[in-house]
């Protein structure tokens, strides 16, 4: 494999690892109730322990095929996948509710029987003891999220402070939030705030115009400086490309050339223009050779010069309003 292929392979591998990481950052265990006596009822009117899963991202994820477990033995990295699966409960296919859109929640009933419905899992939860709960990806080896729930009082829940927040807290029975966000903020909307604080829009105008000017001024500054740099670079390149003048050598060459020309003029007269007869002969010979071997361009031999007045030096073009 060539180097490019290797590099591409590395990039693709790291991208796929990133995609896995994205799922683990998006799907979280969000709230758990282990001792349900008067809280949420399932479709059969029974009250069971439940676990809430949240999609804390702004994309849709399907959690079907993921696993939920309370058996800590699956943390053993040496355990085989079939062994792991035996100790886990799968979130089944075939239920549209497992397709979690952005910021959506899913409730799973535990201590139950999957035959009762797709969201009923056989995961065992003992309300009297602290319980470790793990959420695994479809490969049963990648732990997406886990939490150790303390022994809770009746109808209390153990929940993240906000959806996806790392801080967990025990919620009293009257504050549990199954299936909805853990923190409901009843605040004034942005628009209502704006209407109250900036009824004439002056604040927004000043801020937004400032932002527009700042953005475009940054562009202006950058390209002014960069333009200056490019101009200097072009000038430097031009200088670098010029043939360095070696003063002493050049003067000597010129003196020798002039001396030779003077000699030719003295010997052969002004008509020779100081060029050797040998040079004339060589040029004529080359022309004949090109003609006979048919390698010379075909030319008309006629030069037409048409007069054209360009006014390049007329005075009125150079006149300005300050001309005197």
């Amino acid at each position: 494999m060539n180097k490019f292929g290797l590099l591409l392979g590395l990039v693709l591998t790291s991208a796929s690892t990133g995609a896995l990481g994205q799922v683990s950052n998006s799907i979280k265990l969000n709230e758990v109730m282990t001792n349900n006596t008067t809280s949420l009822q399932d479709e059969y009117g029974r009250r069971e322990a439940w676990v809430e899963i949240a999609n804390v991202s702004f994309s849709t994820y399907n959690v079907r095929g993921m696993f939920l477990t309370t058996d800590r033995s699956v943390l053993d990295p040496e355990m085989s996948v079939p062994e792991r699966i035996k100790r886990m409960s799968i979130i089944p296919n075939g239920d549209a509710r497992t397709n979690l859109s952005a910021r959506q929640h899913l409730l799973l009933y535990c201590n139950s029987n999957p035959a009762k419905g797709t969201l009923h899992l056989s995961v065992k939860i003992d309300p009297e003891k602290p319980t470790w709960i793990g959420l695994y990806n479809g490969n049963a080896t990648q732990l997406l999220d886990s939490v150790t729930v303390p022994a809770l009082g009746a109808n209390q829940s153990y929940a993240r402070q906000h959806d996806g927040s790392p801080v967990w807290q025990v919620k009293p029975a009257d504050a549990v939030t199954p299936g909805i966000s853990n923190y409901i903020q009843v605040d004034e909307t942005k628009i209502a705030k704006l209407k109250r604080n900036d009824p004439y829009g002056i604040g927004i105008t000043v801020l937004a115009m400032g932002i527009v000017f700042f953005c475009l001024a940054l562009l202006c500054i950058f390209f002014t400086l960069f333009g200056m740099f490019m101009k200097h670079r072009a000038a430097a390149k031009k200088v670098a490309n010029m043939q360095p003048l070696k003063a002493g050598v050049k003067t000597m060459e010129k003196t020798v050339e002039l001396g030779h020309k003077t000699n030719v003029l003295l010997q052969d007269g002004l008509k020779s223009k100081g060029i050797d007869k040998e040079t004339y002969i060589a040029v004529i010979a080359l022309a004949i050779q090109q003609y006979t071997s048919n390698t010379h361009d075909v030319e008309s031999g006629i030069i037409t010069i048409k007069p054209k007045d360009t006014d390049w030096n007329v005075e009125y073009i150079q006149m300005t309003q300050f001309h005197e």
Partner: protein
Amino acid sequence: MGFTEFLAENFNEFLGYTGFVNASTGNIIMIIVGAILIYLAIKKDFEPLLLIPIGLGIIIGNIPFKADAGLEVGLYEDNSVLNIFYQGVRQGWYPPLVFLGIGAMTDFSALIANPKLVLIGAAAQFGIFGAYMVALGLGFEPNQAAGIAIIGGADGPTAIFLSSKLSPNLMGAIAVCAYSYMALVPLIQPPLMRMLTTKKERLIRMKPARQVSQTERILFPIIGLLLTTFIVPSGLPLLGMLFFGNLLKESGKTTRLAKTAGSALNDIIVMLLGLTVGCSTQASEFLTVNTLYIFILGACSFMIATASGVLFVKVMNLFLPKDKKLNPLIGNAGVSAVPMSARISNNIGLEYDRHNFLLMHAMGPNVAGVIGSAVAAGALLGFLS
């Protein structure tokens, strides 16, 4: 039931479906409006690429039919063909595609050669915020006011993008208004330009711009993207696509892609956008007092934007050395109606001095206006969404 009765019953039922039975006065008014736009586009050459699809769209959108027949033909009926096309407007994915085409067609050289012209593009955005304040004064909610005010950016796709996010119920009127005023730039701007400048100012000759290297032209979209979107990430869909299109053009290696983005793809999107925006103006939705306000405010914002650009050049001239003064006639080009407003600068300049070609100088603020209006839309979206 006899055969004759059967025929009569079906014929009566058929009549109940026809436009003649279901037409309202509003439909007829809107059909006439659509016809006028088509006339202006063809006869008067007012932005035919926009006004013909919009004009015919208005006619299509106002063909009366029995709404409860379940025919699935109307724009506002789920799964109808027009409804599917309209999702590009509603969900705001046509505007970024139009920006891709604009980027692929635009030469930013004039701006790179004379970067101070970019500030004129910023100043002209005051039209947006001036109209925002007026709209608030008229009792519009801040999000509606922002949607209406963006008309002053003179940028149809930006107006659609922002109104689809902030005030979707006013989007039809805002889009039609934005595109109509863009077509009317040759009528709105020249009187203001003449009023705000002296004859001496109109005769100012600007130095020809320097040659811009390919390195600078390649760097512009990359640096422009980074500088603008780091500050206003909410403008990413528009700015990202604009600079992407420009990089395709300037890289010199993706000529084929740039050509497609700037021609075939852009044409397809403009057709669908124009047609569906026109269709969205069903009389029942469009003929309201709010629409009238939107048209008045749109005109206000256009005029404020033009005046801001021209006056800003005059202010800049106070600080510039004598040999580097700018002709204030390029100030109107700060609104982003590319390249109409730059063409107007050039035409008015030529009226006063037939050797004073301002087109290339005006293209600088003109393309800066495109960036400026996208940044302004991003800023408003950030504040109000």
